[in-house]
């Protein structure tokens, strides 16, 4: 029987994978994907809490839908920025993006 704890552990693992990915990936697309994983960890949390703790309400599911929508909006902007930097620099590795510092 799958319980709330299983879902919470899954989402915690996803969160950790996401944070690890953001910190270690060298490619911008990789970082973007890791951020999406963090968003999905949140969604699992919301829906699982909704289902197990507050089965009468639908607020968790509604929230999850908003998270998905806004994550999509953010991804659109992010990918277009990635395109812009690729046109200028011809690379997507973060260690090459280093003109601004100090």
């Amino acid at each position, binding site marked *: 029987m799958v319980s709330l704890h299983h879902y919470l552990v899954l989402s915690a693992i996803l969160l950790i994978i996401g944070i690890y990915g*953001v910190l270690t990936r060298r490619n911008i697309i990789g*970082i973007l994907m890791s951020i999406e994983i963090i968003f999905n960890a949140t969604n699992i*949390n919301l829906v699982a809490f909704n289902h197990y703790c507050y089965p009468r309400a639908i607020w968790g599911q509604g929230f999850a839908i908003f998270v998905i929508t806004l994550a999509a909006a*953010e991804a659109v*902007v992010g990918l277009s*920025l*990635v395109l812009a*930097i690729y046109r200028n620099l011809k690379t997507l590795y973060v260690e090459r993006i280093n*003109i*601004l510092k100090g």
Partner: protein
Amino acid sequence: MILSIKLLLPEIFLSGIAIFLLLLDTAKEVQIKRWAYPIALFSLFFCFFLIGVSEHGISFQMLAIDPFSSFFKTLTVLSCILVVLISSKDSILMGEQPGVYLSLLILSSVGTLFLSSVQDFFMLFVGLELTTIPLFILSGFAKKELKSSEAAIKFFLVGAFSTGIMLYGISLIYGLCGSTHFSAVREYINLTSGIPQDKTLFILALIFILVGLGFKLSLVPFHQWTPDTYEGSPTPITAFFSVSREAGVIVVMLRFFNDFANQSLIGLNEFFTLLTILTMTVGNIAALKQENLKRLLAYSSIAHAGTIFIGLVAGNTLGREGVMLYSLAYFLMSLGAFAVVIVISQIRKSEELLAFQGLARQNFPLAFLMLIFLMSLSGIPPFLGFWGKFYVFAAAIQSKMFVLVAVGLLNSVIAVYYYFKIVHAMFFKEPIENLTPIPKNLNQTSLTIATGFAAFLILCFGIFPEQLICWIKGSAPFLP
């Protein structure tokens, strides 16, 4: 339902205008595109009226329209108007697609308007996204320039990551409290003083949220992206950044965290105090060795965020008023200082300190205006910045947080050094010869109006603060 919609008239009106401006940009003739500027200005001025006449109440159980939110809404719209004015001659922003630029600017302001009245973590999330997503695009608006793209991508990665972290915290709060409304969270705190496991999880969730907000507000361990993004973005956008982002997050912090600053949530208050001290000190010390004015102002904005935070940590009414006063002062002086930087960088194509040398000999009024803004930023008495600092420190003394006051005062002294480095360069050094001289007549009407207006308000409210303080005292209470 009707009442709820009526309460949100300013937001709805501005969103409509933003969409209209976006459509206006599809026109073929340049003449029609040029209309975007007057339309945007006029509708922003009209928005003052809408904010003024709107009633107070709770809208859709998520947004509290009260005197407090009206105060910050007025500030946001005012800063948006000033940014539109100072960017009116910018060739990149107002060049080919003025409608896109203006509509993104207005949309971002609408996000801040929502944030100023949040009552629910859901609305907090949506409002923050509405504020930051247009800012991602705006900071990368000069798409041919590598600097701008780099600034945008850095801001984007940090912004999206912090949103993710904050959302995870919110999902935990939902699981614990069964609702994301602030009042549900308050009830939860009052109910559970017993179960220790739940309490740990609750504090963890709050820390997740605080880290997310800390990235947005660039509190110190989370501040590394700020100077880069400030330096790379087009300068009017940098000015907008320093104002709008800060305003939104500070209001949220006031609304949410002020309630339990004094409650016995173990460690949260100490955590805040530590963040405040770190933010002020690191911001000021890093600003000391900056040669680029945009970077210097970026670090100084971090330091100012720290000082504003003192009022929040103090957690009393005086602190809340101090935060409001300080925000208003910071808005005006930071926008003004950036406006002068814009003038210099348009003529000399450089924002380094060297470009400011001998400004007083070539164009005295401009140097004098910059002097007013810098004196106000460093908190010297006859100007508005002083009153902000005074209130914030007074609040901390009232709550007996003497360490915080001592560190704050020391930091003010450090700040004077780097602000006066600019004054020294402007007034006591020879202009560099191979740079284009600044003409006596600048030929920039709207920019002059904006800068002059900001300086006038700083001086006027600095010398006669009674009216302003009355207004703030009237706006400080808010709906539960």
